[in-house]
């Protein structure tokens, strides 16, 4: 049994050595659609309860503003896609004891990471979208926070699930690491007793390789999961792709299934590249 080295403190231990009982919390935004922060803003009464339990020192969209404050827990939404952001994330990290990446953008680069590995590069796109590309200051890639600084907890999803976020907050308030369920979506889909759309309709559902957490929403609506929660543990993307091909998908369409909201996540990226070759 390996011994936990006591000389190196974990983020959780740093969190647990905070002085005051009411931890200070910040919500930071990087390149994103703001959808993940809404997990807090849409929480209604729970948001007011949270405001009692913690001191929300920075949360621009909800009001409190103090981006440079030192905090116990920092939630980070969004990916890093500009030079300014790549500097700011360093500052946020330096000011936080425990850092949580909130959502697909922050954990895997999100939808805007589709620009990564694109032949034209972001520059080409800037030229296409903006009349005066020289005004745009953007990085070639949109990357996950963990590629820039150490992240203590990753919450997947586009958007994250509010229930999951509040459970994580509660566990951190107890001073313990939150449970992150990395099972496949199918496990939850079946608990909810939805009829499998892949088996009963032949629709290319991404559930068998996708991280659970959303509550199996897509199958509940009779449609395919499109993997907005990213890859699950031990995803057999190869076998699933072959099944998609058997359902009649062209290689290009198989590739696109992986080249979507979490395209930068290694398991999906590899599968995308393999099928892109073939298309």
């Amino acid at each position, binding site marked *: *049994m*390996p*011994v*936990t080295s*006591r000389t190196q403190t974990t983020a*959780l231990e740093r969190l*647990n050595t905070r002085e005051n009982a009411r931890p200070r919390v910040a919500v930071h935004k990087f390149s994103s659609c703001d959808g993940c922060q809404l997990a807090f803003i849409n929480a209604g009464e729970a948001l007011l309860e949270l405001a009692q339990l913690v001191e929300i020192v920075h949360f621009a969209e909800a009001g409190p503003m103090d981006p440079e404050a030192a905090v116990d827990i920092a939630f980070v939404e969004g990916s890093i896609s500009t030079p300014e952001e790549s500097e700011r994330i360093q500052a946020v990290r330096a000011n936080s004891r425990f850092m949580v990446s909130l959502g697909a953008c922050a954990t895997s680069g999100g939808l805007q990471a589709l620009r990564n590995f694109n032949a034209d590069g972001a520059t080409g796109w800037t030229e296409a979208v903006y009349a005066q590309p020289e005004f745009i200051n953007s990085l070639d890639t949109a990357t996950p926070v963990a590629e820039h600084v150490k992240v203590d907890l990753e919450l997947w999803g586009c958007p994250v699930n509010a229930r999951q976020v509040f459970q994580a907050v*509660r*566990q951190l308030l*107890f*001073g*313990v*690491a*939150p*449970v992150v369920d990395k099972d496949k979506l199918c496990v939850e889909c079946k608990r909810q007793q939805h009829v499998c759309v892949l088996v009963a309709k032949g629709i290319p559902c991404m559930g068998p390789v996708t991280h659970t957490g959303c509550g199996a929403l897509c199958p509940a609506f009779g449609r395919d999961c499109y993997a907005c929660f990213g890859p699950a543990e031990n995803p057999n993307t190869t076998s699933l792709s072959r099944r998609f091909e058997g359902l009649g998908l062209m290689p290009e369409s198989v590739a696109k299934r992986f080249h979507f909201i979490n395209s930068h996540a290694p398991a999906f990226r590899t599968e995308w590249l393999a099928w892109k070759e073939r298309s």
Partner: protein
Amino acid sequence: MHNPDRPVEVEVVERVEETPSIYTLHLSFTDPEVASAYRLLPGQYNMLYLYGVGEIPISIVSDPDHEGPLEHTIRTVGRVTAGMERLQVGDRLGLRGPYGRGWPLEEAEGRDVVIVTGGLGCAPVVSMIRYVLSRRERFGRLVILQGVKHTDDLIWRRQYERWQAMPNTQVLLAADVGGPNWPFSVGKVTVLFNQANIDPDRSIVMLCGPEVMMKASIDRLLALNVPAESMWLSIERNMQCGIGHCGHCQVGPYFVCQDGPVFHYPALRPWLGVTGF
């Protein structure tokens, strides 16, 4: 129908820091009726519940006849154990148990007891050691072989020294990595068998620790002509319920939570060391 999943409340009455990552909690029932009905056997475990966080299996190191709080020695490895580490005297936990099969007390009676353990594997055998020592006349020789990774892993050093001083008792220690203050052997626990005073016909062997270590020790013991039938071992598996329902702890046909954690070696032999079981 009684709800066997529901814990009862216990209070931390003492907390001992054994090493920086190992601590012992002394827990006493807040309901005296529950306390007086509680019976345990060496080698059994409890499910301890940290409020709002989770439940984990932890061996009981107390002697079955010992009145008063139940002792649990815990190593911090993950979320629940890290949370429990911060408990203080007066804090409350949930407890269910005791569960599982303990050490074979009847078979051991009158024989030499050889204890082979590694890592924190000692927790489940400590109650057995204490059991033998407080009923010294009912057993033959007591041989304790303990291997650890690092020299500072060895908890209860004083306790070991005390045991060593007991009559008819041999204590042998080995660490993977030695150090300046380490007067004992260096290497795996198996290096100790040469020095151990084991009579293959009189001994009953109880093993506990990482499975590779137990397997290697068993091979040595077999080579020393200790019959397979004289060997017993305690193993660990993920456990969610402790009462044979959740299915996590299965090893081949066994539910470790109820059929174990202590197994007769011949019963476990086909599964020991098979990757995936």
